[in-house]
């Protein structure tokens, strides 16, 4: 059990995904590989294309709305692709394939947990977000509550999530690039940071969205091609494939049944909750609801995004299973040629090796370029969300109290993006050899416990007051941080204690109800005059949330 977890988490950590919520012993330090020329050429093509788009986008980015939301002119289909792109990081492709390779069915359960947030976000949040918000999700929480205090809190929540998620991605990028392209870790981190700053500062949301769309297409295309080629070796018969995998895999029959990964019920539920509600609190995903014209397109976005994500997860399942047979029996992919030994480049390279086995160096290069492009797209989305929190929420609304021109606000956004890029590079380098698993757990934990409850309560509960919102927001955030610090990934791995004080990997199951409770208690006990006004203002907010009347660009009467 320990061994599986260790293997798994090292794999996932170096890629930085939410699954890294699994406690990890240490980051696997990847070995630098020889220069991968086809990969570099294909990556250069991708960068060239996206820079051209950024150049074009820059000429169209004039107003704050262009900068934050691409002027609301993205269609539901495009936005669905971009959303799926924001959600699928390089870890989805590489980490989950590796997880299927090692754990079989357990990985499928993880993917379902990743997926289930989509319908929920649509049913309960998507159109209300679209109707109430303008640029960031703080717009919703501060709709009828105290602008300054609530926006500050929401911005802190966003920035915390963005920051931790960025570090995880940067460290993953560095390790991956060292391995795939044969470049130095530092070079990789700086390239990612620099390109991200260029996309965001010059092209704003238009460029960021198109980078995301192109990347999502490449990812879907690449994954599907590899899977089709690999699956054809089994005559496209699942039974043939399954029979072979069971014969070869050390889990035997248990490969297609729940294994050890989610044996502890509380851990399983906490993880499921963290992944599910974490989605509904990720600022860069929520921001995508404002890039479309109206609630209709917002709903379509989710339908498309869920379709792409769901399809891709099932492709990954097949990819991982094919890899068990194709990669798992080929000595070329094992260190020293010992089948069953250590895989060259570590567990995460399973998908890469499969690409090479079925499509040669060209496909390998293509997939490597896709993986890099994926990281780049995800960090751009994150950086833009972070920059918006700083410029739109903190600078324009809290510091300047709304007395600020659009040009000034955009200028601050650009400076903020630059700052975020710089910080990301510095921290990416500083954390090179650190275990960053807890940061992924934190990002999702804070999104689920810090952001989601406040957002949900402010949309659905008329009695929520500023005091309650602050208690829920800060309470959830602190609880998530404290629980992660006390969990195995920090308490044992970083501090070196023997046993963790908090025995679970994801704080959501405990931190989220606590946040809701704090929000409830501090609201109902708030008898102030302001609280009364805030409650009274709910009626108007409710009408707007339901009908979209008064929402930006949503009404054409």
């Amino acid at each position: 059990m320990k061994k599986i977890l260790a293997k798994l988490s090292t794999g996932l950590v170096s890629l930085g995904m939410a699954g890294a919520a699994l406690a990890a012993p240490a980051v696997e330090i990847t070995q630098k590989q020889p220069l991968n020329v086809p990969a570099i050429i294909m990556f250069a093509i991708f960068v060239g294309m996206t820079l051209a788009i950024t150049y074009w986008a820059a000429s169209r980015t004039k107003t704050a709305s262009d900068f934050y939301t691409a002027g609301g002119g993205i269609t539901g289909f495009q936005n669905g692709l971009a959303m799926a792109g924001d959600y699928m990081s390089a870890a989805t492709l590489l980490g989950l394939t590796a997880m299927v390779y090692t754990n079989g069915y357990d990985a499928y359960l993880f993917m379902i947990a990743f997926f289930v947030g989509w319908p929920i976000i649509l049913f309960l949040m998507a159109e209300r977000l679209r109707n109430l918000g303008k640029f960031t999700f703080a717009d919703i929480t501060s709709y009828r509550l105290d602008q300054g205090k609530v926006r500050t809190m929401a911005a802190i929540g966003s920035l915390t999530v963005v920051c931790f998620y960025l570090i995880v991605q940067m460290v993953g990028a560095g390790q991956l690039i060292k391995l795939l392209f044969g470049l130095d870790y530092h070079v990789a981190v700086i390239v990612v940071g620099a390109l991200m700053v260029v996309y965001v500062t010059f092209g704003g949301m238009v460029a960021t969205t198109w980078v995301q769309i192109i990347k999502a297409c490449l990812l879907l295309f690449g994954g599907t091609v590899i899977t089709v080629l690999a699956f054809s070796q089994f005559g496209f018969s699942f039974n043939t494939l399954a029979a072979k995998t069971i014969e070869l895999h050390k889990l035997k029959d248990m490969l297609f049944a729940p294994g050890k990964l989610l044996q502890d019920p509380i851990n399983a539920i906490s993880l499921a909750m963290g992944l599910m509600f974490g989605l509904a609190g990720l600022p860069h995903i929520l921001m995508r609801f404002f890039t479309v014209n109206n609630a209709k397109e917002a709903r379509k976005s989710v339908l498309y995004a869920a379709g792409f994500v769901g399809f891709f997860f099932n492709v990954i399942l097949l990819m991982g299973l094919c890899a068990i047979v194709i990669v798992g029996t080929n000595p070329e992919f094992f260190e020293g040629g010992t089948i069953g030994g250590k895989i060259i480049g570590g567990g995460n390279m399973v998908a890469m090796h499969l690409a090479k086995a079925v499509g040669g160096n060209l496909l390998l290069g293509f997939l490597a370029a896709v993986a890099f492009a994926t990281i780049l797209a995800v960090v751009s989305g994150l950086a833009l969300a972070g920059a918006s929190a700083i410029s739109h929420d903190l600078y324009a609304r809290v510091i300047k109290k709304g007395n600020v021109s659009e040009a000034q606000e955009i200028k601050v956004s650009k400076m903020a993006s630059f700052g975020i890029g710089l910080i990301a590079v510095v921290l990416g380098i500083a954390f090179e050899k650190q275990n960053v698993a807890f940061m992924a757990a934190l990002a999702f934990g804070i999104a689920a416990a810090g952001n989601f409850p406040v957002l949900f309560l402010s949309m659905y509960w008329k009695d929520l007051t500023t005091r309650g919102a602050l208690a829920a927001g800060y309470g959830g955030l602190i609880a998530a941080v404290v629980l992660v610090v006390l969990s195995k990934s920090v308490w044992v791995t970083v501090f070196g204690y023997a046993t963790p004080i908090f025995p679970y990997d994801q704080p959501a199951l405990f931190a989220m109800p606590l946040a809701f409770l704090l929000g409830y208690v501090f609201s109902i006990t708030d008898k102030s005059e302001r609280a009364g006004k805030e409650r009274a203002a709910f009626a108007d907010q409710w009408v707007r949330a339901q009908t979209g009347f008064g929402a930006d660009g949503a009404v054409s009467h």
Partner: protein
Amino acid sequence: MSSEIYARIQKNPKFKELVAKRERLAWTLTGIVLVLFFGLFMTVAFNPSVLAIRLGDSYVTTGLLIGLAQFVLFWLLTAVYVRRANSEFDALTEQLLHESVKAKK
């Protein structure tokens, strides 16, 4: 100014109808998704052997089939919601806003 219109919208019986219908659909679908999803995870946690049963001669286990079914079903429920919201609810909203805003003039 808009507060007045908001009040008028809220008084319109169509608003009540819209909210009631949409909330009912949204919460029903949410309920279905949560019950199925947490049902699966509870089964994994408390009775995993149920999910290891093979279907006939094939290698497909109940667990795999249920997993795939959840992907498909959750996506279909998403489609159901989008379909109803984009036709029925949007049309109702349109009428509602039209009546409420026009009444002002």
